[in-house]
């Protein structure tokens, strides 16, 4: 085990490693060069790898994704940075109609090994469009793989695995955890495997990205109250690691899914729908969800309450156990 580093640094190290390992890896996006990105995730990379491999693009997300597709066809392995979650939508068409479909369209003859990095989620006191959780949109689209890291070690390994993936990966980074520290494990889990972040027997709380920390905090509080909460870090939102989820539910009989994203037609809807089907007799309570409400992301003075938090998770634990 190594020293503790921040998630931001872990991502930066992971990107650097990928660029060293494969000369076809290029980083592209707004302000990724000298500035190192608004979150400094690409800090120093342009200096070390040059302007040809760390590309400050014009300000146009469709252009970023669309040219990445062309680079991929030419044999490159582009890593696109979307500056904030709310700014991915001008590139949405290129993502769902081109990135996601090109491999099928070519009967498998073209590979589009693009990684699209998106800092996501709230809790940083930002203005509109800077705190969104758009992962559900992408998890609906076949042809995309969607993952999110929750700690520095996963950040370090998962970004490299995503870049190495021959399939396109939408990589969600929990921006409010960028500065939290942790050690880097010696070896990674497979990219699309969920992880038991805390073993427990009474109820399962499944989360990902920024909410894993919150779920673990809730589990700690619950433990004081004599409730043994198992916390799953889903890590991969598409595909979902159903065996790991089902194993946990078989054990606890109760599941709560937590994310910041809006509730309706979201990743938690899908988890609930699958679990109630695949573990019908194991469930002692309905799958509950603790999520962002179905409103616009609120002004930051309200975000602490609006976001899923320990209180709301504990409340769901109570409700689940009361069935």
């Amino acid at each position: 085990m190594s020293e503790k580093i921040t998630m931001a640094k872990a991502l930066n190290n992971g990107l650097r490693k990928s660029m060293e390992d494969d000369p076809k890896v290029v980083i592209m996006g707004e302000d990724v060069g000298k500035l190192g990105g608004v979150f400094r995730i690409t800090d120093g990379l342009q200096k070390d790898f040059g302007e040809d491999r760390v590309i400050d693009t014009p300000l146009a997300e469709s252009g970023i994704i669309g040219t990445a597709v062309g680079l991929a066809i030419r044999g490159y392995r582009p890593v696109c940075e979307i500056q904030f979650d709310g700014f991915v939508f001008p590139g949405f068409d290129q993502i769902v109609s081109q990135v996601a479909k090109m491999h099928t369209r070519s009967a498998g003859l073209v590979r589009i090994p693009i990684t699209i990095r998106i800092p996501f989620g709230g809790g940083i006191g930002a203005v509109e469009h800077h705190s969104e959780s758009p992962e559900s949109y992408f998890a609906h689209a076949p042809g995309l793989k969607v993952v999110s890291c929750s700690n520095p070690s996963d950040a370090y390994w998962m970004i490299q695995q995503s870049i190495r993936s021959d399939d396109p990966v939408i990589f969600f980074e929990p921006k409010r955890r960028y500065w939290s520290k942790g050690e880097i494990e010696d070896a990674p889990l497979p990219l699309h495997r969920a992880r038991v972040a805390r073993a427990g027997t009474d109820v399962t709380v499944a989360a990902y990205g920024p909410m894993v920390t919150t779920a673990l905090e809730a589990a700690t509080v619950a433990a004081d109250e004599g409730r043994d909460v198992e916390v799953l870090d889903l890590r991969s939102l598409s595909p979902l690691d159903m065996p790991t989820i089902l194993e946990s539910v078989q054990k606890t009989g109760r599941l709560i899914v937590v994310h910041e994203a809006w509730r309706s037609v979201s990743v938690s809807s899908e988890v609930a729908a699958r679990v109630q089907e695949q573990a019908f007799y194991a469930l002692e309570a309905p799958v509950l969800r603790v999520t962002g409400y179905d409103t616009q992301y609120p002004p930051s003075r309200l975000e602490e309450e609006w976001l899923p938090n320990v209180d709301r998770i504990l409340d769901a634990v109570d409700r689940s156990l009361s069935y």
Partner: protein
Amino acid sequence: MSEHVNAVQPEPDMIQLLTPEGQRVEHPDYPLDITDDEIAALYRDLVLVRRIDTEAIALQRQGELGLWASLLGQEAAQIGAGRALRPHDMAFPSYREHGVAWCRGVDPLTLLGLFRGTNLGGFSPYEHNFNLYTIVIGAQTLHATGYAMGVVRDGAVGTGDPDRDTAVLAFFGDGASSQGDVNESFVFAAAGNLPVVFFCQNNQWAISEPVERQSRIPLFQRASGFGFPGVRIDGNDVLASLAVTRKALDDARNAQGPRLIEAFTYRMNAHTTSDDPTRYRLGAETETWKLRDPIARVKAYLVRNAQLPVDFFDDVEAESLRLAEHVRIGCRALPNPTPASPFDALFVDMPDEVREQRDEFVEFVASIEEAAEV
């Protein structure tokens, strides 16, 4: 031969009516009939919006605002354009047009909610014919274009009646010029011959990217590719901004179709209070631009040429202090959002499922407040 190419023009002509030294100069296409009192009024605008900006930055430092996008250096472009508007014209800002808001009569406090996190804008575009700030780069240019379609359908263009004919002014930045939406706006505006003036504040930077990352030719020339006139002005010259925008708006309202104005200016401060420009640009560049300060030249002109009341400059200074206090005190007094507000403002016709979530949330917030009180 029909090959067209615009060579790179390193320093193309810019319309200038007031030199950095405060010299009034004439331009044949943009005669400007303006009294010294009117110039003094512009001076007051410039000073006051700079003061609002200074105060907002201070408030951000003190933790009262989450963020602020400074207009320092761009006052002239904005005040000139803002004062060129007629009351019934409509303006579509991006997120930095505090000076334009000022000209429209928007209380600066109204702008602070977004940056303080008490609302997402929260004002009516109709009150001052000034639309909400738009953060997604370029999106507002299409809104302006569509609004102009409505103006045409209302028969409020080219009638010759100045109280009826309406123009629309759309603001965007040099970085924004690369967005599909901005270029689609040009397509729609040109094809529909719409009464919309596109006002690009080329402040040389899009966060850390210099304008050369977006375009290899001056941005005003973009219009020529779509078939309407583009012009570059000295964006630090309030008189040029006023005269050229006024003419462009008049052309637009007289059914002459769209116009593009590129205001060549400079972002003197960081992109926002979250940004650190020392990582990507040299202090020397900023120093050079200080010599072209938009306020100093107006003051120089007034001092040298105008017959103003003796206390004029002191009065403006005093007024700016009062305004600063208004901003300072008012900001802290801005009401926090109620828990119900995101739900209540979601739809005109609230569905039951939203009402249920609202009630759950309101109850939840009340319960933690109660717990906190215990």
